[in-house]
C-alpha cells in the first residue's frame, strides 16, 4: 500500500496532520481558558459580556437599579437599590465561577472563562 502512496498524497497527509495538531493545540489553550470574562445578566437576558484585562475599567448601569464596576480582572456590584444589599456585600469577584446575585432585581454578575481552583463557592 505504501508503495502505491504517491508523493502528492504524502504531502497532503502531512499538511493535514500538521494542521490538526496546530488546531488541537489552539483548542487546548482555549479550553484551559486563559481569558476571563465578566457577564452581567438580568434574569435570563445577557446584558454585557466583557473580556477582562489588566487595564479594564468599565462601569455598567442596569436600569438605574444596579451598578457593576469592572476593574482590571475583577468585578463587583458596587451599588444596588435593593433592601437586603446581599449582592453589594458579596464583595469583589476575582476568579471564574464567582457570582454576585441581586435577588430582588434578578441581576447577576459572574466571572467565567479562565480556569479556577474551585468549581463553586457555597455560602
Amino acid at each position, binding site marked *: 500500500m505504501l508503495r502505491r502512496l504517491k508523493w502528492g498524497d504524502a504531502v497532503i497527509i502531512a499538511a493535514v496532520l500538521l494542521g*490538526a495538531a496546530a488546531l488541537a493545540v489552539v483548542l487546548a489553550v482555549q479550553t484551559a481558558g486563559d481569558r476571563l470574562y465578566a457577564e452581567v*445578566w438580568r434574569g435570563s437576558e445577557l446584558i454585557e459580556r466583557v473580556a477582562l484585562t489588566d487595564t479594564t475599567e468599565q462601569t455598567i448601569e442596569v436600569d438605574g437599579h444596579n451598578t457593576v464596576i469592572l476593574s482590571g480582572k475583577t468585578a463587583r456590584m458596587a451599588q444596588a437599590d435593593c433592601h*437586603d444589599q446581599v449582592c453589594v456585600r458579596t464583595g469583589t469577584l476575582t476568579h471564574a465561577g464567582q457570582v454576585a446575585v441581586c435577588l430582588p432585581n434578578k441581576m447577576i454578575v459572574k466571572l467565567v472563562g479562565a480556569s479556577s481552583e474551585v*468549581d463553586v*463557592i*457555597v455560602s
Partner: protein
Amino acid sequence: MKRFLAALLPLFCLTACAPKAQEYSTDFFAMNTFMQARVLGQDAQQTATAVEQRVNALDKLLSRTREDSEIYRLNHANGAAIETEAAAYIALALPQIEATSGSFDPTVAPLTDLWGIGTEAAHVPAQEEINQAMAHVGWENIQVNGSQVTLKNGAEIDLGGIAKGAAADECAQILRDAGNEGLLALGGNIYAVGTNNGKPWVVGIADPDDTADYLATVAVQELSVVTSGDYERYFEQDGKRYHHIFNPATGYPADSGLRGVTVIDQSSVRADAMTTALFVMGLEKGMAFCEQNEIAAVFITSEKEIYTTSKVSEICEFSFVGEDKGYTYAS
C-alpha cells in the same frame, strides 16, 4: 477529492474527539434564591432542563409564600387535616427534627414573620410579641398520617430548611438516571454528582465576611455540601447583628458564637437540616453531636477559628486556605 476527504479524517478525529465531556450550564431563580446546574455528558441540555422543571415543581409544592402551594394551603387550613402531596416532604423533615431534639424545627415560621428578616420590615420585636409567636412554635404540633397532615395549636410550617435539600437530592438522581455527571448549586445546597471529567468537584466554603472568597475547600464526589451562616440574610440594630437562623427555644436568632456551619453528606435533606441545627447548638455541643452521629461538618467561629469533625477526612479531601484572612484551623 477522495484523497483529500480521506486525509481530513484524522483532522476530524483530533478535533471532534476532544477529551472533555459535553457540557451544558444553566442559571435560574427558584425557591427565592439563585440556582445553577452544570451538567456533563450526553443530552446535557435536556437533563439540565429536567432539573429546572423539577425544582420549579417542588417550589410550587413547598413554598410558604406562594398562594398556590400545598404548604400555603396547609398553613391556612385552621388546624383541619389536609390530604397533601407535601406530606412526603414533611415526613422527610421529622427524623431530622427528632435527631436534633428540635434544634432544627420547621415550625419557626411565626418567628420568621415577626422578625421580618430579609424584608424591609426587619426589626427587633417586643418580648411580648416573641412570647406570643413562641406559643405556636413546636414540632409536636405537626401530625403526619400517611398523606394527611394536621397542624395543631395555630402552628405554621416552613420547609425552607429542607426544600432545597430535597430538590438537590431529587435532581442529583435525575442526573444519575440520565447517565450524566454534574454540579448542582441550589442556593446554599451543592450536590456533586459523579466527577468533573474524572476528578472530584472542588467546593469552596465561603468567607463569612467576603462571600465571593473562600476559607477552605472540600473535594467531593457523590456528596452534597450545604452551608448555613449569619451573613446572608440579616439586619443590624444598635450595633448588633440579627440573622435568619432562629433558636426555637428562645425565639431569637441563634447566638451561638458561630458564623457558619457546613455539612457534607450523601443526603442533601439531612445536610440542610443539620447545618441549621448545628448552628443553633453552637461549637461544643455541635461537635459532640456530630462525633456521636458520624456527621461531616465544618464550623466557622466568630473567633476566626475553623473546626472539622473526624468524619470530614473520611469522606472528602479538606484543605484550609484561610490563613491570610486571619483564620486558624483548630482541628
